[in-house]
């Protein structure tokens, strides 16, 4: 068991609380860096995919998990980023300019989508973002001269200073770099006054307001940052899939993104990464067990949604902190061994609060 003896205030906001963390994160980083040597190209593509979704996930976690704003339109931000990147790169704009433009454009759309958040909250906000998402999807499908409409848009591979990040290890490293950067940015935001303001808004808008937090500004900011992350991820997604069409960014996709952060564990950056890994790994796991299932099950197209839905329900019912919560319990168990008690993480008895009174 480890005791952290704090002697300076700075220790509260240090990136790594103690040497053990430096070691484990360093090890993780090293494993990720040498991964291309060991794993097959297919697994590597999946890892790139995990990195891309991890970028969306940390962004969405900032919004949903830390600012408490429900967004059911995040796929639309990804779409904005992906199409911006696709169109610009096709027009000969360098990769980095494209990705910055994708982030900025998505952030601008995020600000617009965030506007209803100033007036409505909770479920209404979810519905408002859902409405925005549908409208953006429809705009992309109809703006055929720019986006290619439903026929789709081909995207060339990444070309950076004349060096092609076509596929395999080079693209993986690019995605990994972006994912690590995104995670670090979010962690740093959370350590700063901005992040504290976000968490204050999540916990109680009235208290935050009385502490001098400008609700309108911080809510919009949260939407903008979150959308910018989704935009960057969209840009990478465009290069990864190489083909964009509006039906890749539907409401269903948005809902899956929210599922990702809920299953990973709302309110933790770890959870965002776990959720992204889960979202990519689940179809693979299902494919792996399919040969052992009876025929009517393995051939059903609905197998994946069923498992997804079941996992979601079980997580919310039994493990509100998601995969991160499960990990936390395991870790605490070994940390405190043999003093772990059954009720240590018992959920506080909650009474239903009325949302109708604002």
């Amino acid at each position, binding site marked *: 068991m480890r005791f952290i003896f704090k002697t300076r205030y700075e220790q509260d906001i240090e990136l790594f609380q103690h040497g053990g963390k430096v070691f484990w994160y360093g090890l993780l980083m090293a494993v990720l860096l040498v991964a291309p040597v060991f794993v097959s190209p297919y697994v590597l593509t999946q890892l790139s995919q995990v990195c891309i979704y991890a970028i969306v996930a940390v962004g969405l976690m900032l919004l949903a998990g830390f600012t408490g704003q429900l967004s059911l339109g995040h796929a639309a931000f990804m779409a904005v980023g992906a199409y911006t990147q696709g169109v610009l790169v096709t027009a000969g704009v360098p990769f980095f300019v494209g990705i910055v433009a994708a982030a900025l454009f998505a952030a601008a759309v995020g600000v617009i989508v965030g506007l209803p958040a100033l007036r409505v909250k909770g479920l*209404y906000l979810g519905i408002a973002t859902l*409405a925005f998402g549908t409208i953006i999807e*429809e705009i992309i499908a109809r703006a055929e001269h720019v986006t290619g409409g439903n026929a789709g848009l081909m995207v060339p591979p990444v070309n950076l200073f004349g060096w092609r990040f076509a596929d395999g290890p080079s693209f993986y490293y690019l995605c990994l770099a972006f994912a690590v950067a995104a995670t670090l940015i979010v962690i740093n935001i959370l350590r700063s006054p901005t992040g504290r303001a976000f968490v204050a808004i999540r916990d109680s808008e009235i208290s935050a307001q009385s502490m001098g937090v400008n609700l309108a500004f911080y809510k919009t900011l949260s939407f903008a940052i979150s959308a910018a992350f989704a935009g960057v991820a969209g840009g990478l997604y465009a290069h990864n899939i190489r083909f964009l069409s509006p039906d890749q960014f539907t409401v269903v996709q948005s809902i899956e993104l929210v599922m990702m952060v809920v299953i990973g564990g709302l309110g933790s950056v770890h959870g965002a990464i776990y959720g992204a890994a889960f979202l990519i790994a689940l179809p693979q796991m299902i494919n792996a067990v399919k040969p052992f299932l009876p025929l009517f099950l393995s051939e059903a197209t609905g197998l994946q949604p*069923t498992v997804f839905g079941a996992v979601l329900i079980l997580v919310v019912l039994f493990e*509100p902190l998601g995969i991160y919560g499960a990990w936390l319990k395991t870790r605490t168990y070994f940390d405190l061994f043999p003093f772990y008690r059954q009720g240590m993480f018992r959920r506080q008895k*909650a009474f239903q609060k009325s949302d109708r009174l604002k």
Partner: protein
Amino acid sequence: MQFVQLVISGLAQGCIYGLIALGFVLIYKATETVNFAQGELLMIGGFAGLFAATTLGFPYWAVILVAMAVTAVIGFLNERIILRPILGQSAVAIVMVTIGFGYMARGLVTMIPVIGTDTHSLPVPFRGEVFRFAGLVISAEHIVIITVTILLCGALAALFRYTKIGIAMQAMSQNQLAAYYMGIPVKRLSSLIWAISAAVAAIAGILLAPLTFIHANMGFIGIKAFPAAVIGGFTSLPGAIVGGLIIGVVESLAGFYLMEGFKDAAPFMVVLAMLVLKPNGLFGERLAKKV
């Protein structure tokens, strides 16, 4: 004439949206949760009706009853088993659970061997019949939808107005705690509300079947019913129907007079305007919190 024609078909479609929205509102009023799986309950109702009509060979009215009964039981169990344990958790948690239920329902339905991902058509006695009236051509399906919706609304209004259980439900939606103190079985009633709203969804499913066929993804229509509920104010039963009618008519008119693509986006544009201008909807109650 063209215009009136469009309005009538819009009204019929709007009744469907209204009925789904009614389900949202019933549940929201009673338990302050939004059931994102309302569309899937509609789909289950459709399939239950299909089973009753084709395999069991029931007449149309019995088909409706079977569908209502099946979904009511599912709605009841859904509340009892999945939702009650997490009452009091954050709105996101509850929304995610209903979404999860919707996913499971959609996935499980495709696993039933005879259903799969095919589309099925429900045999109805009035298929393809049309009425001509003063230059208008109105299909029997539309008339049935509108009539059944009116009857159902009347029945629900009477339930809430005149029966003991209805009045208890009203009390519960106003103040759960006070209702509990008055000896109203709040828990049992919220299960019952889920059953009623699922049954309403089943009726919508049976009514929708002649228009769109029955398939595993028909539940996505539920997404379009959100705008209806928001426009009506989310806490008003007549509001839900009015909202549904507005959405239906707007969609029908936009599909004809505006560019292609506006048909699907129009309801959402209306709801965004509504949320920005009047977040409480047309009939919503405005309550202020005392600090």
